[in-house]
């Protein structure tokens, strides 16, 4: 199984999420997964400008040429993508959110009904399943964790995928890796 970790942790310094992910990644590898981690903070990722070039001018292709050119094929190649998400004010950080926004080119502009709701049509035949590891800080609450999970479930649905795995850095990383592989 190919697992891509999109690491939203800080660029440097004492980042507890980095320590957690090192153990998580090692446990995934020892469980037989082929793991790649992309540290988003080390890449140049610009904000989506809403130009919609990817929908109506250069279909499927983002007009911004930056680190996302490496993320797109890695994302599509993976069987499972685990988002490692530091929480800020109880939800995904701006770095993670802007990366999510930049996945819009992977979808088609056309709309279709999915379980009675409007969603974008798939552009590609398959999309990876998604996982989510949140890194809460004081005073984040269980409600914040549940709310972030719900927002990612919605994000997965719109990305024509599904969220199959959820963990918090408050849990044991080896146990989280076992769950991620079994999900």
């Amino acid at each position: 199984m190919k697992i891509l970790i999109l690491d939203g942790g800080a660029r440097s310094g004492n980042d507890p999420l980095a320590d957690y992910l090192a153990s998580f990644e090692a446990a995934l590898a020892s469980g037989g997964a082929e793991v790649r981690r992309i540290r988003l903070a080390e890449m140049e990722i610009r904000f989506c400008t809403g130009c919609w070039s990817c929908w109506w001018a250069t279909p499927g292709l983002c007009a911004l040429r930056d680190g996302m050119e490496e993320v797109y094929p890695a994302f599509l190649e993976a069987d499972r993508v685990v988002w490692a998400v530091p929480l800020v004010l109880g939800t995904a950080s701006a770095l993670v959110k802007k990366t999510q926004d930049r996945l819009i080119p992977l979808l088609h502009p056309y709309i279709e009904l999915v379980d009675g709701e409007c969603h974008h049509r798939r552009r590609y035949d398959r999309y990876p399943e998604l996982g989510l590891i949140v890194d809460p800080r004081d005073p984040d609450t269980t409600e914040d964790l549940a709310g972030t999970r719900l927002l990612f479930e919605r994000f997965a649905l719109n990305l024509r995928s599904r969220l199959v795995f959820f963990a918090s850095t408050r849990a044991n990383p080896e146990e989280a890796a076992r769950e991620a592989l079994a999900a």
Partner: protein
Amino acid sequence: MKRLLLNGSPRGDSSNSRCLCAWLAEGFVEAGAPAPEILSLARAGTERAVREFRTADEVVLVFPLYTDSMPGIVAEFTNALADLDPAVPAGKRVGYVVHSGFPESAQSEPLAAYLERMSARLGFVHLGTILKGGSEGLRLDPGSGRSKTAGRFRALGRSLAGRGSFDPDAKAALARPRRLGPATRILFRVLAPTGILHMYWNVLLRKHGAYERRHDRPYAV
């Protein structure tokens, strides 16, 4: 009282959010209040937006639903608020408008729930969140200023200026449909094979000479 309308659309001044801000501002003026400043977050940047936020008493943050939450530039702005002295945001009157291209407002409800939690955490006086579906293309319609939607946003501006709260009738009307009804879903399925549902996108694809390439998969591995 200093009021600020903060346009959080990545498209900045050529956005549907800008239209909604302008209609809210017209409502303020109709109620006899001064026209509030409309600040584009995309153009001004986070630093200036935070400076304006610091000195405002009442802020309405208007933005489109992006991948089921706030756009990245709005997240950067709220992340910056987390770094402020807690006394700065505390007590400010803050409301939100979240609009989406999808017609159902229910798709924005999880985000509205988050915005309420965030407001409590920052000590805002939470004015509520207006949800509006079906907003794609508003800015392209020269007649949209005379539409029911425009009238309802003016009503929201009038009520916020006059009574200090969003007009509940306008808020409820804008949130319809919350979900597609059975008849609409059947109609959607009947029309889907005709391609008529894709007309808006096809016009734009043809305008850019990209219609024949509309199913391209440039990042396929």
